């Protein structure tokens, strides 16, 4: 279970999160929606451990462990996964090398032996197929020359390989056409399990036609200002965020 209590955070002295409370139990999919600048991506980065942000108050625990005290790679090996809004290109690092290094780091942390090369390739091929990612694409350096949609699918591929227990998806649906949204959603749905919690950040209700959430939260000015069931997303789609922007002001 992810428990965020009274979280305050700032970047370069600018307050972004102002007392955010959020609980996501295992097995549930929660969605955060809200206007631009409300702090959604900041929350995602803080969960993953990006050190540009300073947490000034509050706590974040994952399965009872203090997440804020852990390095980004420790968090990842403890089960936290952030699907980036803008996956970064890493020239010179082959995708397969990257995937293998990441997977082996996880296996090592769990006390498992490294996978043999054929086993690894088989595993990647199997998962990549389901996300319509070609092995040719994975011959390229990480995200280099990938289209926007390919980058997002590559994030989901990493997620399905690493099998995290807390999945944070930061606008994974933005910039995707409808087919890609379906592919990505299928990937996410395949990973849904009682042991796994999801936190989806999105602007659009559209994604929720494919991934049906347990709860929807509205974020504004660095706090959760409203929570509800999946119908809240439909309501937001109609009414927009104007009301919440006002709250921010």
């Amino acid at each position: 279970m992810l428990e965020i209590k009274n979280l305050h955070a700032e970047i370069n002295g600018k307050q972004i999160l102002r007392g955010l409370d959020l609980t996501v139990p295992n097995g549930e999919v929660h969605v955060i929606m809200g206007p631009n600048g409300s702090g959604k991506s900041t929350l995602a980065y803080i969960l993953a451990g990006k050190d540009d942000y300073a947490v000034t108050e509050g706590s974040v625990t994952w399965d009872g462990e203090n997440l804020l005290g852990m390095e980004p790679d420790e968090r990842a090996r403890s089960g936290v996964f952030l699907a980036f809004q803008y996956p970064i290109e890493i020239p010179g690092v082959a995708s397969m090398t990257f995937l293998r290094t990441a997977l082996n780091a996880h296996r090592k942390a769990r006390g498992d032996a490294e996978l043999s090369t054929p086993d690894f390739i088989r595993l990647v091929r199997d998962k990549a197929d389901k996300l319509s990612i070609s092995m040719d694409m994975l011959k390229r350096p990480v995200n280099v020359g990938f289209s926007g949609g390919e980058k997002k699918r590559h994030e989901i591929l990493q997620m399905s390989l690493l099998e995290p227990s807390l999945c944070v998806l930061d606008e994974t649906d933005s910039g995707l056409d409808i087919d890609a949204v379906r592919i990505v959603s299928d990937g996410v749905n395949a990973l849904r399990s009682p042991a796994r919690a999801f936190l989806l950040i999105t602007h659009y209700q559209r994604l929720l036609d494919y991934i049906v959430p347990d709860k929807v939260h509205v974020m504004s000015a660095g706090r959760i200002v409203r929570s509800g069931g999946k119908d809240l997303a439909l309501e937001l789609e109609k009414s927009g965020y104007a009301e919440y922007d006002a709250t921010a002001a």
Partner: protein
Amino acid sequence: MNIPALNFEAAGEPRSRDATAELIGHYQRVAARLPGADSAALRARRDQAIADFAIKGLPNRRVEAWKYTDLRRLMSEAYAPAGHEASVTAAEVESALGEAAGIDAIKLVFVNGGLRRDLSSLGAIPKGAEIISLADALRSPPEWLLAALGKINPQQGEIVTQLNTAFMTDGIVLRLEKGAKLARPVHLIHVTAGDMPLLASLRNVIVTGEGVEASFIESYVSIGASAAQVIAATEVRLAADARLRHYKISGENERAQHLASVMVELAEGADYLAVNFADGMALARHQSFLKFAGNASRAHFYGVQLLTQRQHCDMTLLINHDAVGCESREHVKAVLTGHAQGVFQAKVIVQPGAQQTDGRQMAQALLLSDNAEFDAKPELEIYADDVKCNHGATSGALDEDLMFYLRARGIPEGEARSLLIQAFIGEVLEQIEHDGLREALGNRAARWLA
């Protein structure tokens, strides 16, 4: 012998009199014993070289080309030229070479500046190729060699070549006939060994006919921890459409000092690729002088510097475009830790009439410590109006966003850093066309990073 009096005070500026005087003194002692001492023509050349050297001596940082590599300060003494063979076994050479030992090649092993036939494996010399030891060749130098030696793209007043000409004891003379294609690289392996500091000088001469294809690998290693000074010079004359791949691995021990000059002249359509990998040595100065003498020729130089502690590595190039439509590339990547200093200097001269010249230079350094230093001095001197030339240089720390992405996938910090540094130098290592060598150096870089 015409050697000016050693009157340093008269020269007007302070100099590291010790090393300069020691070098001249060493020469006077060994000159009569050097290979080819019986050849008056050769002896005259050696004498002239040391006399030319004596005029200015070792350069200090006030000499523009040596601004970042102050030899007077860095080379405070000159070791005695190696006199006797050290006992070195094939297994020791192999272990010093590491993975590069496994490369299938025509191998010539030199120990302290002298060819060791027992350690070399020439195998079948391919048709159209002639490989001889310089020491043998100098005993009665053939006309063609005398015509080439010191005459390929000569550099006026260049002290590394001067010293090498004075002290050269051995090296590879490689002559390739028109159309010769070497399936295996020629691998020069130079080993310094023994308990005494020593000076060794190797001179290589490569002269090709038209359309030749060959690869030449130079490996410099040490056995043991003794200090050594190596002065190497290589002259390359590529005939029309000849293609040479020239790789150098500079991996001597942390006390070694290494000065090298490579002089290359390219005829029409010739294609020269150099990749210089340096992770050893206390002090290294690698100079390359490239001259485009024929149209539509091409020369690429790539360098990797992996330096730690107080290592100093300088890659300096002078590229002379004196023909139409030629292409030059220089790209050096340095990874520096501790108090290491990396230097890249490249001057591209485009002569009047050298139209459609395409020249690009790039130097990039990763500074992994606050005390590391990288000096980049790219220069363009253009006297033609239809050319495409540019240069750039960057230096900085590892990209934090890239680090975060890798770590967010569970990759520990050290491994993430290593992946990124390998990616950084990978761009240069990829230029190595020999699969085995590329892999060997990739692994070597990975071990350096670990």
